Each structure stands twice: as C-alpha cells, then as structure tokens.
C-alpha cells in the first residue's frame, strides 16, 4: 500500500516514525462535547444545528462538515466534535436553547483522543480488532459505530471511502496507537 504516515504518540512528541500501510495520525486537540438529550426531539435538532452547524445524525451514523462532526453514540447521546477551543461557545448555545429541556452538555475536549486513518486498507486493519462489520458493505461512508479494538472501547466513523476516524479515551491512546502500528505493519496485509 502506498499510504504511509508518520505518527506520534499523544504524550510523547518525540516518538520515532513507524512505517505503516495505512495513514495514522493523531488528530490533535479538538473541541468535544458530550450531549445527552432526546435526539428525536426537534428542539434538540435545532440546538445542535445552531451550535455545531450539523444535522443530528441517524442511528449509527455521523454527520460532518469541515472539521466538525456529530457522531451518534446512542439514542440519547451525541458526540460533537468542533475545531479546538470552540466547545465552550457551543455549549453555551446549547444550554441557552435547551434551557427548558432536560439535557446535559459537557466539555470533554480533553477526555478523548481522535486518530485519523487514511488509505484504501483502513477497513482491513480495523477488522483485525473490531468485531463489527467494517467492510464497504457494512460500513459505508457516513457510518458510525461504537465497538471495541485492541481490548478497549472505541468509536469509529467513516467520512469517505479512504477517510476514517476512531476515538478512544485519552488514557488509552498510547496503547491504541501501538495496536494500530502493529496491525498495519508493512507485510501484514491480508
């Protein structure tokens, strides 16, 4: 595979470059919001649209625009991802618009690490650990799944045919990165 990437562990910027057959890149700091509310409610949809500029995704789906994402996590939970630093402003908007609506909007920008995975073989590498169907058939662009990988809980979503992101709790990021590097080592292709 042609796509190789230099990768860095989030807590150790000097980590040596490791060759892999997909692109692996820590997406770096992002604004992240956990929104818990009834996602079927029009008021919530309007607030999300206003705060993040995104439509509430369907079940097991992601909506995105530029660096912003709205990821379906459960019938009453969204993960909103925004450019770094934009979480507090968006939370203020959500809280204002949902003041009379039972909800929770938390700034979790530091809670998770996001990896951007690129190349034609991303699905293959993810299938080495994720039990859910990550084939073109089972996971077309626009799909979001919560599953597990490398022995830990992750979320994954596919933005384009060769463009994926996965997310894990920040403390597990070095482990997940190691797993990705081992699983995508040159020569380990199917």
């Amino acid at each position, binding site marked *: 595979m042609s796509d190789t990437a230099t990768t860095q562990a989030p807590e150790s910027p000097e980590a040596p470059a490791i060759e892999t057959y997909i692109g692996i890149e820590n997406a770096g700091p992002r604004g992240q919001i956990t929104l818990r509310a009834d996602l079927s409610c029009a008021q919530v949809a309007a607030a999300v649209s206003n705060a993040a500029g995104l439509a509430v995704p369907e079940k097991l789906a992601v909506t995105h625009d530029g660096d912003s994402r709205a990821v379906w996590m459960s019938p009453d939970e969204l993960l909103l991802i925004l450019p770094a630093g934009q979480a507090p402003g968006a939370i203020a908007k959500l809280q204002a618009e949902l003041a009379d609506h039972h909800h929770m909007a938390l700034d979790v920008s*530091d*809670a998770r690490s996001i990896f951007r995975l690129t190349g034609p073989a991303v699905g293959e590498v993810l*299938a080495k650990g994720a039990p859910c169907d990550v084939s073109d058939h089972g996971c077309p662009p626009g799909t979001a799944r919560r599953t597990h990988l490398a022995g830990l809980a992750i979320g994954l979503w596919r933005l384009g045919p060769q463009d994926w992101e996965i997310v894990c709790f920040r403390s597990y990021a070095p482990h997940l990165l190691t797993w990705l590097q081992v699983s995508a080592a040159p020569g380990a292709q199917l």
Partner: protein
Amino acid sequence: MATRLAEGGLLIDRSQPMSFTFNRDTLSGFDGDTLASALLANGRTLVGRSFKYHRPRGIVASGAEEPNALMGLGEGGRFEPNQRATTTELYSGLVATSQNHWPSLERDVGALNAWVADKVPLLSAGFYYKTFLFPRIAWKHVYEPFIRRAAGLGKAPTEADPDTYEHYHDHVDVLVVGGGVAGLRAAREASEAGKSVLVVDQSRVFGGRTLVDDDGLNGDQGIDYVAAKIWAMKGAEYLASGGSQAVADMMPKTDGAGPVRLMTRTMCSGVYDHGYALLYQRVSDHRPGQPGAPRHRLWRVRAKEIVMATGAIERPMTFANNDLPGVMLASAVRDYIRLWGVLPGKKAVVFANNDDAYRTALALDDVGAKVVVADVRTNVDGALPQQVRDRGIDVLASHGVVKATGKKAVEHAELAPLDRPDRIREVGCDVLAVSGGWSPVVHLWSHCGGKLSWDADRALFHPDPSRPPTGADGQAMVRAVGAANGDLTLDAIVSASGTPAEAPMQPHWFTPAPGKYNHGTKHFVDFQNDVTAADVRLAAREGYESVEHTKRYTTLGMATDQGKTSNINGLALLAEALDAEIPDVGTTTFRPPYTPISMGAISGSAKGPLFKAVRQSPMHAWSDENGADWEPVGDWYRAYCYRRTGEDRHTAVTREVLNARQKVGMLDASTLGKIVVKGPDAGKFLNLLYTNMMSNLKVGRCRYGLMCDENGFLFDDGVVVRTGEDEFLCHTTSGGADRVHAHMEEWLQTEWWDLKVWTANVTDQWAQIAVAGPHARKVLEAAGADVPLDPGTVKFMDYIDGTLAGCPARIFRISFSGELSYEIATPAGHGLQLWQALLAAGQDYGVMPYGTEALHIMRAEKGFIMIGDETDGTVIPQDLDLGWAVSKKKTDFIGKRAQQRSDLTRRGRKQLVGLLTENPQDVLPDGAHAVRRVFEEIEMETIGHVTSTYFSPTLGHSIAMGLVNDGLERRGEWLDFPVDGGVMKAQIVDPVFYDPKGEKQNV
C-alpha cells in the same frame, strides 16, 4: 521401499529442489512437497515411535487425519511439537525431529514397554485407574514416576515465540468450508443468488479428492462443470495459487453475483452459536521469514449460513500388526503417487471392503508396482474391481490380511480366508494399502448441537437434516453437502460425473488372526494413543457400556488427532463386544478445534506491549522519567513510589510518607473515577445509589459516600461534590469508574427510567493532583491562585472553581491522608503543566511526589478503608463501623433491604479493628489469620484476618487493620496469628492510629 517416481506429481515443481533435515540428516525434496511426501521420497518410512509401547510407526495418511507422523518442528523459539508431517509444507531449511524415542529413532529403549506389556498388562485399558488399587507406596514410587515420564506427546518449547499472529473479523452471507466439488458448487450457487461467499480449504489447493480421483475424465460427454474444471486446471498454476485463480474463474460473472473470497491453508476450527465460526489461516508457515507477515491469522467469521463441505476420512482396517510402517490408508497411497510423484512401495497389498480402494490398485499398477488385492466381500463384481482384474491383478474375495509382519516396516502380509485365518498365503510387500470405508467429517455439524444418523448399510454417521444446529431464528445454520453429508461418490454429488458406479461396501471391524494374535492386542485402533481392539474389549468386559466412558477408560480418541481415524472403528468394536447396535452405543462429542491450532493464533497480537490495554495519566511520561516504580491498578499504571538513585522501594516509601506528613507531598490522582450526574432528579437518584443522603448537600460542598450492591455489600466509595443546583460530580475508586457508571446506567435504564437524570463518565477529561501536607496551602498560593484559599473561605470539604498556575482548576479541599490537603482537577491537557508548576512552586516548601504505597500507608494510619482491602464483596458498611454513613431517614437505597436480613444483622460478623503487634517492629503478614486457639495441626478455628498491614514511618511501629468476629466489641483483646516461624500476638485497638481528632486536616 518408498521412492520418488521419475515423473508425475501434480503439486511438485521438480525444478525447485529444497533441502531439509530430519533427525539431523540432510534430505531433499521439491517445492510443493509436504514433509511426509518428502520423507517417503527419501525412503524414510519409519518416522516416529508410538506413545505407550514405543512401537515403530510410519506415515498413515496424506492429510489432517494423520495419527502417527507427529514431528518436532523448528528450533529455539520457533520449536513446536506434535506437528503433522502430512500437513506441513516443505520449505528450504526445514528442521524436523521425530518424537517419543531415546536414544534414537532406530534404537529405542522405550520399546521395552511393549515387551513388558506382553508379559503383564501394565498399559492396558484403564491402567491409570488401576494403579490406584495398589498400596499407596507403589503409586508414589512406581506408577507416578512412570506415568509422569510417559505422559504427554513431544516436548514443550522452552523459549518465547518470536513470531507474530493476528486476528481478523469477517462478515459474510455464506461460509463454505471445503473447496472440493461439493463446496465449490455450493459457492457458485450462493454467488449466483447474490450472496457474499467465503470459501476456505485446509490444504494448499482447491479440488479435494476430485483432484486425484479423476476417472470421470474417461466418462461421458457433458460431465459436471465444476468437476471438469478441476480436472482441467491441474498444472503448474497450482503451485502458484493453490488453484485460487482457476476457482475464481469458475465463479459466476453476471451482474449481481455475490463476491467470492477464496482462501487455502485455512481450516475451520469450530462452529459456534449464531453462525460464528473460527478459521485458522496458516499465512506464512510454508514460507517462513516473510517480513511483517504474521505466522497465523485467526479469522472470526459471522456467517448467515455455513456450508459444510468437509469431505470424509478413510478408516484403517483392524488386523494384527496393522500399525507397522508401510500400512497406509488406500487413498493416501494414491495421493502420494498422483500429487507428489512418490511411490510408497513397489510391492503392494490392498486390503479393502469397498470399491473405492480399487482406485489405489489401479494407481499403483499405473506406475509399475506389483499389486495383490484382498477384499472381505464375497461378491466382488463392481466396475472398479473389474478394471483391476482386467489388468491381471489378483483379487482375493472373502479374504483379509490376518497379520502383517516386519521389523521396522511391513515386509509380508499374511492373507487368509476370513473363516480360516490359519490358511495363510504369505505375500511379500512393502506397502499395505487399507480401506475400511469412509467416515463423513461431521465435526462442524456437531460442534453446535447438530445430530447424526447411523447408516448401517454404508457404516457411517451422517448429518441428520431434521436435527441441524440452529441459529437465532430456529432454522438450520449449517448445511452439509458432498461426502460430509454421506454422499461419498462423485455420482452422488453431481448428476453426470462420468465416474464408474460403485458396488456396496461391507462393514468390517475386526480381522480374525492366527493364534494368540486373535486376542487383538496387536490390532491397533487408535494409533496415536496405542489403544488396541483388546483394550476396547477389556473395557466392555469390565462393564463400560457407553462410548463416552470407554473413551476415557481406554483413552481411545483422546490424543491430538481426537480419533479421526479411530472413532468409528472403536465404536464398532465396542458395539460388537457388547452385542449392541452401533447407534445404541452412542457417539462421542465433537468439540473444537477440528485440528489443533497454535496458542499464538489464539492470543493474536495480544502479547508484549499489547498484552493488555494500559491507561496512562497525563503525567505518566514525567513519572516514568522521574523514578516511578509502576504497579497496575485496574487498567492504569500508577507509581508505587518514586525511587531516587540508590533507594529501594522501602526507603523511597518511607521518605515519601514522612515528607508529606512533615512538609508537603504531591500525588497523581488522575486515575480517580469521575462521573457527572445531572438533571432535576439528580439528588433523588444519588440518594438511591449511595447509602447516605446526597440530596441535601450544598452547592460547593463535598461528602464522602458509600455505594452498595443489591445484596447490601459495599462495592465502591468516593467523594461526591455538588457542582451545581442539578449537577453532581461523583468520584469513584481508580478502576471502578466503568463499573459504577454501568451500575448507574443500568438502574436508570431498567428501573428508574422515569427519573430525569443524565450521567457521563468524565474520568479522562480531568487530570487530578493531590497536594497534601502542612505546607499544602502555601504551595497552592505560591503557584498563583486567582481565588482565595484561606481556611475561612475554603473550609474542609469545600470546593471552589478557579485558576491555578494559569490552568483552569477545580479545587476540592478533601483529604485521604489526614493532612491539610487539596485535590486539584484540571483538564487533562493541562495536567502536566499544572503538575510541574506545583512542583516548582513547592520547591521552597520541600515538596516531593509520592506514590500509591505512601498513599496507602497514610490512609491506613488514619484508619480509612480501601475498597478491595477492607472489603471483599461480603462486607457491609456496618461491619466497617461506617454505620454513620448509612442513612436511617431515607425510605430506600440500593442495599437497604438487604442490610436488614438476619445474616447481615446477626452477631458474630467480622468487623473492622485496628491491630498493634506485641513487638512494634513485627509487621503482620497481609491476609494472616487470627485463630481462637493455636494448635500444631493446620486446621485451626479462624476468627479474623488481616486486611491492611504496614510499618508506619510516621509512628515508628507497625500498624494493621483486620476483620475480626465481633471485633467492635473486643477492643483490648489479644489475638494469636500463626505465621511462618511462630505466632505473632496483636492487640485489638481503634483503627485510627494517627491524629484521631482530625485536627491536621482541618487547619
């Protein structure tokens, strides 16, 4: 003498010679050989010694069912015992050693076992159990050493395996196991119907038996498409792709055809619930050393339907000395001739009860071997026998091989009429091709509950289509096709195979033998475990009626081959001995894996750094560079202590405790679980979760809380902070956050769905730092706080939001050490910055980081409990004298009703005490038991045990906590703890050893 033929061999490339070693002899074979075919090509018919009797053994089969030819393969870290030579592909530099012999394969001392066994039945059926009948002394000094030495095949590797392994998850509509005609036809049909298909074959080539048994080629026009394609595609390309390209070409190409993935060298190891199957792919065994390639890959497949096209396995004949090297399955003999250009012997006897074996006679004759056929049937008049007779080959009807003779290989076959085993005609031979019929490979059908039916005419178990393994919808999830379904001939699978019709076979289980041999002590049934017909009969005489019991008593079918060649023969012999029908004796249970799979494939990439997921705090790298001595806490790695140059753990811990008590210490508390609970009903919800009242907590205040399960037992604790009118932050134990969060969600989603509450686990959002010690406040002030921290404003158990050293900070004035203490949470991205800023600010006050051991000692000095030390899943808060934290006013909370049960309120429960040893320098061992009275015997009445024990650097003597029967009422009493080297005495005291009035934390 086995030898390589001058030409032929579908699978070998004679232009690519390869050298390998067997027992240090350098031999050579060709690319495409298996280790077995290469050994035969080199005339090596003796390849191992048997398990119990160390009898010489040779190659029996050509595939996965091989019972004898087990090898130690590789060297050092790559050594692996018990590898079947028949499924090991040859590569240059392969190193193989035979097993079960000393000092050498040719001269083996263990063969004495066989001589002894002839005199006394030392190793006969049930010998292991019978050894228990003798006096104890004999077991200890005679049997156990003998059995231990004999137990186990091969040797375990002694070094770590350097190879890599991985898993792969796949989802398909149809999984086809077996790439012969039946499997490939099923794959074609599924693809035509638009389904996605995965076809796997355990060997290196597709085609199955059709590859060798190509007599349909001579038949009519219009033969089956798939069979014709397989016959047509033989050739050099097999070496390159295992036929994958040719097979891909035969799949439908129409629009809407489902995708077909083809994999050779992939064995379906097991079928599980809901169409889940495990596939074992040998990726690089045949070409080791490919950079980056895993050795094995374990496929975890979810299939909507599984097609079992696994074929059938030929059964050996049971006769005297049927285990001599040179006695081989008839199909294997022609496989070696046709696939690898190897002639197993120049003078052959074929011993059969069916027509199919005559193909072997023809194949032998084709390459110039001399052949005689003995057939147990009276009427031998099928088309195949006729072809054999037409070539002038002797066919003896109603005859059997009553005995084979030879030293290290078969030299003669003694042929006789079955009703006159003494009327022997001796035929010189160096290969004896045997066929007792075929057994469908029904393992995958049976793994998940499918039932079998016995077909008495054809003497085989086949899948019962009315009792299949079923999926979630109650419908069959496995479908059997081809030989695996009992359709043993190509004619039965396809309408126009062009192959000759076959006459019925005749079941034949035991060949009478002359003289004492007729007892069956040399009629081997299970070659790998050395179980004979005599053993099976003995078990029957001793009362074993069920095959499941006989199996364990005799060890029939319990070796690494799991009875692939012996199962039905053993069953039939048992039925004969019991005068019962075969299906009445029952079948043994088939369990995964079908053939052994490597431990590496099971663990996949989970080894070395990936053995287990590890969580790192934002200060992990800093700690690692600053002497952290790590210990695992849940998934986290936490610093046990920070060792300075020259310090051992104990010295470092002592320094850290004293420094925090006398000056100020800093702890990385980021691992503490943190869960936000928000909503108008948040207080009500927490009142139900915690034993104490939480709804009346004031905003900006903290309260220690206890969480019990439905049975009343304490399972987590932590400080709850009210961060807003409808928002709380619940701290949990390190490693407890996921469990507590799941507990909350379960109650919210299943029982209290009417409560308006949201929860979120924000453990990773916050780095948390405890600053503890007399100078704690000064350190925070020196770091630069934008909020007042004076004790009038921020009191003990207060919480305030602010900025500290330029970092957003939530400052909780709480203490787990008993000192003046603040825990500061900052977004994880600021964690390291704040940690370093506080260290710098604390320099003048003597600040030092401390680890988990200092934390534990300081909390024990204060008598604070630790979940998992003072609790073990059977302890309620009242046992720990924490009744003050259990609300009497609340109408309900989880565990309330349970705590009123008689067993939790009775006298005599173990209760928390402090313990001081008689000699203050003695530290009680962790977990040591207090006994009512000390006796010499080990069985003494226990009245309590130590739960936490330390040497307190602060107090200069040891301290301990324990759970003791009625301990709260026994203050002042002395307890006896029998420990290694004597008895320690300790007195029951108040568990708060340090600052009992709590003055230090409240300044």
